């Protein structure tokens, strides 16, 4: 096949589609005919009924394609099989089709209908692959069909299909750029997608189709930042690169103040001192005018969220983050990337090559960053030459006064290397160090001079070149070194070195007027024994001396020229003749001899020794253009920082008007705004949860189904069942099962849809909610501190105190960064806030809520920490769920563990039954859930997913908790309708990283709520609930509950019932009704002599009755 490549040569470009194959076929003459025969039997196989034969044929055809052989004549035979049932045959046909459709457009159209059918298939994989192939067929006629398919797929339920749609966009764009506007619409839609699967692909499409439409990113910026860590590696690279550009247009330069000073310093380094003075003054003036720089929180968000990716295993991701930090981070923070980049140096040599190129550029701008890692750039003899040279470049860039001696010592060992190209590069590097660092110039020169005696000509030549450069830069020091070199002529035998020295003496003969003629004298003596190259330089030297010092050297020159005249080498004879005519004035000498001096002793320009990587940083680091130091096609310039920041509110996802009046008029408007916008974008985040889970439902169910089993063994048969079901769903590949699943999903999708599409309306109310939530929280913590749990709240406050202390100390900077935007308001302001809220309390009356008697008790710190959290959480609440957050746990409430902090990896969750009515739905039991984050990291996006409930049971999820800072605790309320049964409610508790299977099982006593009635009513009701509905049990009271008070306490703690006033002191009566169906539950405890007593429960539901008896019995006998 290599012969085929010859034919394609003239064509070159990508336009020569399939040309080489055509060119190849006639060339292979004889085989060609037999090829046809073989193709015939392939055709036969393709036409057969057996799938195995078809498969065999397709495999052979694909092998042909892979080897680059032409198989286009089989097109009709292959296309027929596009609808083949066998999926492997089908796939191979797709491969063939994509390869040859462009050449056989008409025939390719035959297959289109199959794909259109495939687009409607219930199997998402088939839908996706149909779209993939359809969009890969480069046939212009089907552009409208493709457009339609992409649009449809962009709103597919399956994120995988949507991802494929995103991939199809650039394909269509390259086929027909006219479709750009429509495609941008699709991109805009997909950019709003909240799944990680789609994010990378759609940003890729964005970059290829409309990278200039930066405005499309605004609304999605925060979402992209937050999703980033969960996007697959390749998507991360694309997104980070795009966001780098975005940030450059939207934020202010974090280094405005420092960079000016620093730059002028750098300039001095390169020795252009002239303009500096003026510039500096101007800069100083500018600096004075400048306001103190405050980083936009969104800018910070980007830096914070990309930082963990420096730990990625994928070098491309690490590099992308590194360039982002280099281009966007404040100078003080850029340092973090050095370590990660140094780590990449252990990777494959190709990776090393690219990384070193980028490091070389970085070291010019930010030398300090890599200085600690100097030794990591030391060179091993086993490194490939190209890597050695790049490392050398980095080492040279890193050299400064303090480390130069170490570096020079390293260089000395390098000079002994066997790799001559590398030695030459080392010598150049020494030269550069010598020019940059004055202190070592002499040492370097001496070292280089010694190298002149090296046997290797390359080394010598390089040394001479470098010495020459050094000398040219420092004319005043010439004489010494040249004198020294002149002395060396006695010892140095390498002809190249001798020649080089002679050239130098000749060039600067005016600086060494006494020595130069002497050198010539010595050389004249040995002329006949010298190598040719030296002889030429002797002639050169003689000529130059003759021109400057003819008195002393006239005879010598003539002697040399005479010797040369009879030399064996005709080059030398030639040269001698030429020079004689030029310099020795004779009658015949032409006009040229007048200019001889100018010809020979013209001032040679001093070469500049600077890094080839200087100024490369105007290309975005890590890009192809940077590597090549030339703009590659499709490269997007990295824009300069704007002078003034564009409006940051464009990134707010809310409608601005919906911000309630009072936040606007607040004196701290800016801060308020920030607070408002944060939760809003989280709002949109929260919604991503359900949509995603709807699609990934089947697998997550089976995966976690088994997980839940071990976590809580008591969850009963239900989870067992659901697990089996989900497993069967997965493994059975029967069509029916598939359809059912699909249908289920569609249903769910439908249900979900309105919730997703109406965030606007929710948001407008959301802002108000947030404020209310804040109040509420403030009050809550107040009442809490009063209640029995005073101790607890105290410990909490002390914890948060220490927390804030550690923040101010900021020992771990990761923590600091994470916290920074959230914990901005200092305690003082928080106090103010709390006061303010007190005033406004009346504005936001909430009925089910007693006023806080003494808010001043509220510990400030406690308020601060919790209010921030409520801030975030409150916003995403809808008004119906609002009230329950306010429930203060009354009395001694038993808490249960939902998730142990070890199982939950630091997230501890407890719940209790607050016994407050759940106002959004009166049939639900309010469950108060307390999250404690015991980790050092934030937990984000806490929400409920995927409830597995018994039929009839319902669940009202708590609003997503956007953020739970380390060490903090947050309390939310959710409602569960247990249908008056003690079956557990199973669901998943999801954080941004994990899912936990949890279940809440209510004690029967919590399934009811108190009912107030008189003694008469009680008796009347009791009378109706006799017989089977009455359960009574004899018991012996426990030691501690012998008096009335003890009994009441025990019973009310076991069941949520209220006491009924009663005349007799021998009897205690309680009444309640079940929450879900409102059935009455009557409890009577009649005490007798000693500690004997009788417990009677009257309830229509016998199950509840028996269970309640059991529970109360236990409570009383203990």
């Amino acid at each position, binding site marked *: 096949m290599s012969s085929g490549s010859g034919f394609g040569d003239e064509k070159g470009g*990508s336009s020569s*589609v399939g040309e080489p194959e055509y060119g190849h076929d006639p060339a292979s003459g004889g085989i060609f005919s037999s090829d046809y025969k073989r193709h015939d039997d392939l055709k036969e196989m393709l036409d057969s009924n057996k799938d195995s034969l078809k498969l065999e044929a397709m495999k052979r055809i694909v092998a042909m394609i892979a080897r680059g052989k032409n198989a286009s004549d089989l097109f009709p035979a292959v296309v027929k099989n596009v609808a083949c049932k066998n999926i492997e045959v089908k796939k191979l046909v797709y491969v063939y089709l994509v390869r040859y459709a462009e050449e056989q457009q008409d025939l390719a159209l035959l297959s289109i209908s199959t794909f259109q059918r495939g687009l409607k298939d219930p199997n998402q994989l088939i839908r996706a692959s149909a779209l993939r192939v359809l969009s890969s067929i480069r046939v212009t006629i089907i552009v409208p069909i493709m457009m339609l398919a992409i649009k449809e797929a962009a709103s597919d339920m399956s994120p995988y299909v949507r991802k494929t749609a995103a991939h199809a966009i650039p394909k269509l764009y390259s086929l027909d750029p006219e479709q750009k506007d429509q495609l941008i619409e699709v991109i805009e839609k997909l950019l709003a997608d909240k799944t990680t699967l789609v994010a990378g692909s759609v940003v890729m499409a964005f970059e290829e189709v409309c990278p200039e439409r930066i405005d499309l990113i605004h609304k999605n910026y925060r979402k992209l930042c937050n999703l980033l860590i969960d996007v697959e*590696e390749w998507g991360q690279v694309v997104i980070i690169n795009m966001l780098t550009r975005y940030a450059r247009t939207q934020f202010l330069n974090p280094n405005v103040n420092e960079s000016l000073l620093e730059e002028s310093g750098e300039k001095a380094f390169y020795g252009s001192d002239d303009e500096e003075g003026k510039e500096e003054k101007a800069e100083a003036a500018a600096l004075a005018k400048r306001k103190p720089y405050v980083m936009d929180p969104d800018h910070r968000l980007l830096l914070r969220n990309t930082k*963990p990716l420096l730990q990625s295993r994928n070098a*491309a991701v690490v590099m992308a983050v590194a360039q982002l930090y280099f281009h966007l981070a404040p100078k003080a923070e850029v340092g973090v990337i050095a370590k990660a980049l140094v780590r990449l140096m252990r990777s494959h*040599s190709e990776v090393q090559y690219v990384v070193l190129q980028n490091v070389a550029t970085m070291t010019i701008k930010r030398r300090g960053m890599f200085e600690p890692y100097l030794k990591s750039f030391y060179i091993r003899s086993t490194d490939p030459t190209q890597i050695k040279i790049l490392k050398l470049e980095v080492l040279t860039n890193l050299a400064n006064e303090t480390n130069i001696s170490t570096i020079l010592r390293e260089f000395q060992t390098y000079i002994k290397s066997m790799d001559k190209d590398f030695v030459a590069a080392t010598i150049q590097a020494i030269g550069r160090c010598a020019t940059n660092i004055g202190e070592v110039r002499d040492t370097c020169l001496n070292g280089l001079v010694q190298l002149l005696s090296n046997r290797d000509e390359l080394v010598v030549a390089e040394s001479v070149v470098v010495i020459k450069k050094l000398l040219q830069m420092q004319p005043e020091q010439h004489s010494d070194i040249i004198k020294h070199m002149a002395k060396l002529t006695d010892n140095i035998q390498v002809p190249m070195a001798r020649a080089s020295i002679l050239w130098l003496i000749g060039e600067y003969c005016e600086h060494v007027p006494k020595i130069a003629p002497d050198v010539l004298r010595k050389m004249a003596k040995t002329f006949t024994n010298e190598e040719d190259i030296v002889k030429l330089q002797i002639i050169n030297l003689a000529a130059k001396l003759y021109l400057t010092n003819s008195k002393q050297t006239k005879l010598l020159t003539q002697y040399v020229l005479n010797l040369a005249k009879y030399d064996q080498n005709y080059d030398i004879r030639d040269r001698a003749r030429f020079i004689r005519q030029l310099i020795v004035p004779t009658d015949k000498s032409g006009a040229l001899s007048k200019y001889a001096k100018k010809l020979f002793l013209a001032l040679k320009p001093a070469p500049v020794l600077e890094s080839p990587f200087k100024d490369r940083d105007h290309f975005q680091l890590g890009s192809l253009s940077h590597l090549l130091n030339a703009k590659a096609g499709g490269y997007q310039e990295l824009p300069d920082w704007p002078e003034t920041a564009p409006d940051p509110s464009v990134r707010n996802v809310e409608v601005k008007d919906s911000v309630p009046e009072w936040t606007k008029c607040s004196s701290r408007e800016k801060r308020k705004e920030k607070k408002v916008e944060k939760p809003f974008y989280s709002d949109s985040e929260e919604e991503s949860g359900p949509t995603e889970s709807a699609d*990934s439902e089947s697998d997550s169910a089976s*995966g976690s189904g088994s997980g839940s089993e071990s976590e809580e063994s008591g969850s009963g048969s239900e989870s067992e069942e659901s697990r089996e079901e989900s497993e069967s769903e997965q493994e059975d590949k029967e069509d029916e099962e598939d359809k059912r699943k699909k249908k289920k999903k569609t249903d769910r999708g439908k249900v979900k849809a309105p919730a997703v599409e109406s965030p606007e309306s929710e948001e407008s109310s959301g802002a108000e909610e947030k404020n209310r939530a804040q109040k509420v929280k403030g009050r809550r913590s107040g009442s809490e501190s009063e209640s029995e749990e005073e101790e607890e709240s105290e410990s909490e406050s002390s914890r948060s105190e220490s927390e804030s202390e550690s923040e101010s100390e900021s020992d771990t900077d990761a923590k600091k960064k994470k916290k920074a935007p959230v914990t901005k308001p200092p305690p003082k302001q928080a106090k103010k806030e709390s006061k303010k809220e007190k005033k406004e309390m009346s504005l936001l009356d909430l009925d089910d809520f007693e006023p806080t008697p003494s808010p001043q008790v509220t510990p400030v710190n406690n308020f601060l920490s919790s209010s921030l959290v409520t801030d975030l959480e409150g916003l995403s609440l809808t008004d119906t769920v609002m009230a329950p957050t306010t429930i203060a746990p009354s009395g001694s409430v038993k808490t249960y563990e939902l998730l142990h902090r070890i199982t939950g990896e630091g997230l501890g969750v407890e719940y209790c039954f607050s016994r407050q009515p759940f106002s959004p739905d009166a049939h639900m039991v309010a469950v108060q859930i307390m999250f404690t984050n015991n980790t050092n*990291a934030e937990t984000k996006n806490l929400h409920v997913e995927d409830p597995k409930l018994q039929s009839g049971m319902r669940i009202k999820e708590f609003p997503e908790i956007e953020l739970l800072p380390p060490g903090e605790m947050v309390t939310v309320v959710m409602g569960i309708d247990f249908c008056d049964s003690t079956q557990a409610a199973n669901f998943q508790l999801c954080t941004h990283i994990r899912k936990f299977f949890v279940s809440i099982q209510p004690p029967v006593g919590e399934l009811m709520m108190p009912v107030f009635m008189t003694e008469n009513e009680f008796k009347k009701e009791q009378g109706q609930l006799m017989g089977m509905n009455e359960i009574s049990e004899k018991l012996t009271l426990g030691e501690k509950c012998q008096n009335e008070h003890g009994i009441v306490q025990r019973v009310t703690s076991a069941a949520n019932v209220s006491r009924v006033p009663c005349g007799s002191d021998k009897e205690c009566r309680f009444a309640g009704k079940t929450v879900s169906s409102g059935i009455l539950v009557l409890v009577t405890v009649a005490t007798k002599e000693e500690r004997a007593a009788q417990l009677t429960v009257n309830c229509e539901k016998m199950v509840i009755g028996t269970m309640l008896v059991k529970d109360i019995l236990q409570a009383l006998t203990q």
Partner: protein
Amino acid sequence: MIHSLFLINSSSDIFLEKHWKSVISRSVCDYFFEVQEKAGEAENVPPVIHAGHHYLINIYREKIFFVSVIQSEVPPLFVIEFLHHVAETFQDYFGECSESAIKDNVVIVYELLEEMLDNGFPLATESNILKELIKPPNILRSVVNSITGSCNVGETLPTGQLSTIPWRRAGVKYTNNEAYFDVVEEIDAILDKTGSVVFAEIQGVIDACVNLTGMPDLTLSFMNPRLLDDVSFHPCVRFKRWESERVLSFIPPDGNFRLLSYHVSAQNLVAIPIYVKQNISFFETGSSGRLDITVGPKQTMGKTVEAVFVTINMPKVVLSANLTATQGNYTYNPVTKTLVWDIGKLSQQKLPNLKGSLTLQCGAPKPEESPSLNIDLKIQQLAISGLKVNRLDMYGEKYKPFKGVKYVSKAGKFQVRT
């Protein structure tokens, strides 16, 4: 992004081509051949080559050049990493990434490449997703397939593709539940002529082989996690927990994977397990030289140093070596000019020594350059940095897995300058 891929063997044959967009003539590779010729050795071929309207980004793995054709701006590392990933996938599927393996499985290779890239942008690269889409070849299946006509291609979307943990497939089942971890450390060091350390650091990896049923959630903790200076994780590792608690918490991929690579910085003193005394000199006259090398154990923490090799790339003028080794044996390859001394185990009592004369080319001047010694060694049951795994806990599953941790220290780029 990635337009086309060409696989080229060492004899400059293009034995596979794949195009993801319109077809690009393979003549574009001529640019590559030109550069390759100029570079001489394969490892000196620059990874990025400007070729007219295209750019060629290539990697060299297992004697194969993977040459990808790029038409517009793309981060070069993106392509390089991807190509390496392709090579690793082949390795994973066929056991080796060689020309013959690729040629034998050309259809699977093609199917893989088709799945891995869509329009030049990576689509499915996780090994477990790919394995569900396209089953790796094995003899039994190929026999069954040829009889039943069933195929190697999965019909449903792999579960990993949609889940938040794409690296693990659902419904994994094993009868023996095992989790093995290999802590492998490599010492990168440069020693100078006198034997003092110029530079030393430790690069470690933890490779895992996890065969566990279901969806286990593992937590691996270390006795001394602060040792680790810089780490990079498999995506499964929860970064937050590492930051806060310095434990590795993860839901493992199924099978073999690299959990963690780490770096123990040069600031911590690195224990160099051996010392080398060497003297290589060439005489001004007589076209000969002398060589004397002694290797001995140093800080080995009571473990035996095994599999010690000393490799020296001699200057070109060295024709032959006439040496005697007190332990092990040596070979000198006069073509590549490499002297390899295979020592084997190092014992405390008798220090191995290699001594003798070198013959130089007649009349050639004494070589200037000093060859450096590359050392290879292995120490079992020891992580030279002192890193120790404390415990491995499993959550989320009931059964008791069999757990094991193995430590090995090796020489990485260990060089002694002369």
